[in-house]
C-alpha cells in the first residue's frame, strides 16, 4: 500500500478493483502528480486519436458520419431485439456443435468455466485478452481451482506477472514503461535485463510458445456474435488469440450478451470501424470467425468449443431505455483516447475494468450507482467522446442522465433547494436578469481587487477547489446591446 491507501503492485503501481465504494477524485490526484505516467498516456492517446481520424478519413471521406450512423443503428436494432437474436444465435451455434452455457451473474460465468476445465481435467490454460473476464475476475478463480492460467497478450502477460491491472481497453499497459517490463522479465522469467522492445517481445514469445504447446485449455473473449450463423468473431493483432483458439483441445469463449449482431453484412460494417477507431488499422491483423469446434474432415482445431454467454448486469441496462444505448459499445477505446479527463486522470483512477467515458457510464450501470457515485462527474461534457464513438453513443447525454439519477438519490437538501430556485430564476426574463445581476455583484465582491475568484465561500467552494473562477463581464451582453441602440425583443 502506498500512503494514499491505494493497493499497489510490486512496481508501486496502483491496481484496480477497490472493494466497496470508491471515489475517482483522490485516485486521480495521485496519478496527476506522476509526470512519467502523464507523458506516456498523453503521447499514446494523442497518437491513437490522430490515427483514428486519419484512417477513417482516408477510408470513407465525408461518408464517415453516415457509416457511423449505420453502425449505431445496427447495434441499437440488435439490442432492441436481443431476445430474438440471442435465441437465433444459440440455435445456430448449437447446430454447429458449439456448447452454449448461460451465466446470469459474473460468479456463475466463472463457475461454468472452472467446471468445464475440471470436467476435462485441464491443467494449463492459455488465455487471450478479454474485458469481460477482467470484469468477472476469472483468472484468480481458475488458479484457485489448481489450473495454471497464463495471459498471452503481451500487455496482459506483463500485467499478470507484475500483479498489476489493465488501464486501457485496447492498450492495457499504457501506464507502464519499458524499464518496468525489463525488471519484470528479469525477476519472473530470469531473463537478461534489456529495455529493447524487440528483445523483450522475443523473450515473451519464447516463453509463451512453450505454454501454447502444453496447454489443454484456451480461454478467449469475443468481439461479435453473429446470429445468422452462430459464429464468434475475435479481433486480435499479436496472434495469441489464434493460438488460444487453435492449439488446445478445448476452447472456451466468455462473451457478454451485448456482442450480438444479426448477420455478416452487419459484421462487415462494424469490422470496417472497429480497428480504425481503436488503432487506425483497416482491420486487426487477425479477424477470426469461429463457428463450432473442428469438423470431422478438418485437420486441426479444438475438439470442443464452449461459449459462455454473460449477463452480469447487462439486462439491467437493457431494461432502462434511457441508458440502453450504452450496450452498443464495441470496446474500441476511441472515447478513452479522445477524452481530456482520461488523458489526465488515466485509466486506474476510474477504479474499474472499464475506464474513460464509456467506463464512467457502464461501471455505475453494471456495478451500481451507489458504489460509483463520482464516476459520471469525471467528464467535462466536451463531447469529444461522442464524436469519436463509431457506434454513435451519446456519452455526454448518458453522463448527464446518470448525474441526474445520482442527484435524485444522494443530493443534499440544500442542493435541491438551490436547483429549484435556479430553475425558477431561469424560467422568467425578469427573474433571470435580477439573478444574473446579483451573481455578477456577489462574484465581484468575493474577488475583491483580483480579476478571478480564488476561493468561493461555503457550498460554492467546490467550484474553486481545483481552479479559479473567471469573473463575468461587468455588464451583460443585453445591457451593452441595448446601450448601443440594439433592439431587444
Amino acid at each position, binding site marked *: 500500500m502506498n500512503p494514499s491507501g491505494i493497493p499497489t503492485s510490486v512496481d508501486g503501481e496502483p491496481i484496480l478493483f477497490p472493494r466497496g465504494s470508491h471515489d475517482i477524485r483522490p485516485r486521480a490526484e495521485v496519478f496527476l502528480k506522476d509526470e512519467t505516467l502523464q507523458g506516456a498516456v498523453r503521447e499514446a492517446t494523442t497518437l491513437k486519436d490522430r490515427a483514428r481520424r486519419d484512417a477513417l478519413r482516408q477510408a470513407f471521406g465525408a461518408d464517415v458520419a453516415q457509416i457511423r450512423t449505420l453502425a449505431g443503428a445496427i447495434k441499437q436494432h440488435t439490442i432492441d431485439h436481443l431476445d430474438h437474436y440471442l435465441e437465433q444465435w444459440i440455435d445456430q451455434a448449437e447446430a454447429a456443435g458449439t456448447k452454449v452455457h448461460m451465466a446470469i451473474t459474473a460468479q456463475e460465468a466463472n463457475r461454468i468455466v472452472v467446471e468445464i476445465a475440471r470436467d476435462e481435467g485441464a491443467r494449463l490454460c492459455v488465455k487471450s485478452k478479454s474485458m469481460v473476464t477482467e470484469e468477472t475476475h476469472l483468472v484468480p478463480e481458475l488458479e484457485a481451482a489448481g489450473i495454471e492460467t497464463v495471459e498471452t497478450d503481451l500487455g496482459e502477460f506483463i500485467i499478470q506477472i507484475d500483479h498489476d491491472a489493465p488501464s486501457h481497453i485496447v492498450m492495457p499497459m499504457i501506464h507502464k514503461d519499458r524499464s518496468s517490463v525489463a525488471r519484470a522479465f528479469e525477476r519472473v522469467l530470469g531473463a537478461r535485463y534489456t529495455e529493447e522492445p524487440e528483445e523483450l517481445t522475443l523473450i515473451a514469445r519464447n516463453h*509463451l510458445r512453450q505454454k501454447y504447446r502444453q496447454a489443454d485449455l484456451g480461454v478467449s473473449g469475443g468481439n461479435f456474435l453473429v446470429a445468422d450463423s452462430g459464429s464468434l468473431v475475435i479481433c486480435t493483432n499479436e496472434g495469441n488469440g489464434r493460438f488460444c483458439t487453435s492449439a488446445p483441445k478445448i476452447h472456451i469463449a466468455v462473451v457478454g450478451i451485448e456482442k450480438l449482431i444479426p448477420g455478416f453484412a452487419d459484421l462487415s460494417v462494424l469490422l470496417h470501424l472497429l480497428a480504425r477507431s481503436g488503432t487506425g488499422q483497416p482491420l486487426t491483423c487477425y479477424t477470426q470467425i469461429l463457428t463450432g469446434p473442428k469438423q470431422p474432415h478438418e485437420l486441426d482445431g479444438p475438439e470442443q468449443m464452449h461459449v459462455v454467454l454473460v449477463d452480469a448486469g447487462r439486462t439491467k441496462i437493457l431494461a432502462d431505455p434511457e441508458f440502453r444505448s450504452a450496450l452498443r459499445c464495441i470496446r474500441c477505446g476511441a472515447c478513452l483516447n479522445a477524452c481530456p479527463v482520461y488523458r489526465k486522470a488515466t485509466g486506474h483512477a476510474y477504479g474499474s475494468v472499464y475506464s474513460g467515458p464509456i467506463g464512467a457510464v457502464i461501471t455505475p450501470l453494471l456495478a451500481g450507482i451507489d458504489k460509483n457515485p463520482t464516476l459520471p462527474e469525471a467528464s467535462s461534457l466536451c463531447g469529444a467522446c461522442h464524436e469519436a464513438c463509431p457506434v454513435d453513443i451519446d456519452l455526454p447525454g448518458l453522463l448527464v442522465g446518470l448525474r441526474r439519477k445520482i442527484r435524485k438519490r444522494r443530493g443534499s437538501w440544500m442542493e435541491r433547494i438551490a436547483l429549484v430556485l435556479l430553475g425558477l430564476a431561469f424560467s422568467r426574463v425578469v427573474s433571470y436578469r435580477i439573478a444574473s445581476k446579483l451573481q455578477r455583484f456577489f462574484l465581484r465582491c468575493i474577488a475583491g481587487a483580483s480579476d478571478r475568484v480564488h476561493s468561493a465561500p461555503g457550498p460554492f467552494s467546490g467550484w474553486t477547489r481545483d481552479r479559479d473562477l473567471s469573473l463575468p463581464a461587468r455588464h451583460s451582453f443585453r445591457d451593452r446591446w441595448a446601450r448601443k441602440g440594439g433592439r431587444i425583443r
Partner: protein
Amino acid sequence: MKGASREIFLERVRNALGRKERSEPPQFSSDHNIIRRPISTSGDGLSGRIALFSDRAREVGMSVEHCERAQVAQFLSDWISAEEISTVLLSDDPLLDSDLRKHLGKQGIEICTNDVDLDSLYDQVECGITVATAGVASTGSLVLVSSDHELRLASLVPPRHLVLVSATQLVEDLLDLSGPGGVLESQGGTIPSSVTLVTGPSKTADIEGVLVTGVHGPGTVQIVLVTD
C-alpha cells in the same frame, strides 16, 4: 449445458425489453453498401481488384508479388533459396503440386506435410506455405479457411508465412464474403469452423507504443498473387 437454463436466461432478456413472448424483429432495412468505396484509379473489374488488393496489403506490411500460374513452382523455389530457408511446411493444395516438390527436393529443402509432428512444427519449420481461399481488396486481407488440406497452425506457428492467392478469388469488399458463392455464405450448409482474415504480420505496440512484428504469429507475410 451448465449455468442458467435457456428459458430462464432468455426470459430475463425479454422481460428487460418489456416483451411477454418471442417476437420477430421488424426487417432492418438499411443500405450496407455505403461502406463500399469506388474501387481504384486503375479501373474496375479484376485489374482494379488486383491493384487495390496489392496496395492495401503492402500498406499493412505484407509483401506482394505477382506470378503466373505456370511459374508458381519456379517462383517459390527461387524465393525459398533467396530467403535461405531450409525447412518448409507445404499445405496439400493443387497449386503446390508435385513439380514444386521436385524443385525443392533438388535444392535440398526439407519438406514437411500436414502430418508434421508438433516438435518439428514449433522448432524446425521456418516457413508455412499455404493457399488462401480468397482475398479482400478493400482491406488487403487474406482469407484462410480450416479444411481437410490445410492446418490452421501452418499459417500461425512458423516465423514466416508464404501464402498464395488466385487473382480470380479476390473480392472487392468484406461484404462479398457472405454474398453468393462467398466463403461465409451460410445458406443451406455449414461454414468452415475457422475463417481467418489476415491483414498484416503479427504485431504489437504494447511496450511504449513501439511497433514490433512477429509477436506470436509470423513476423513476415509474403503474398504470391497467382494470375492466369
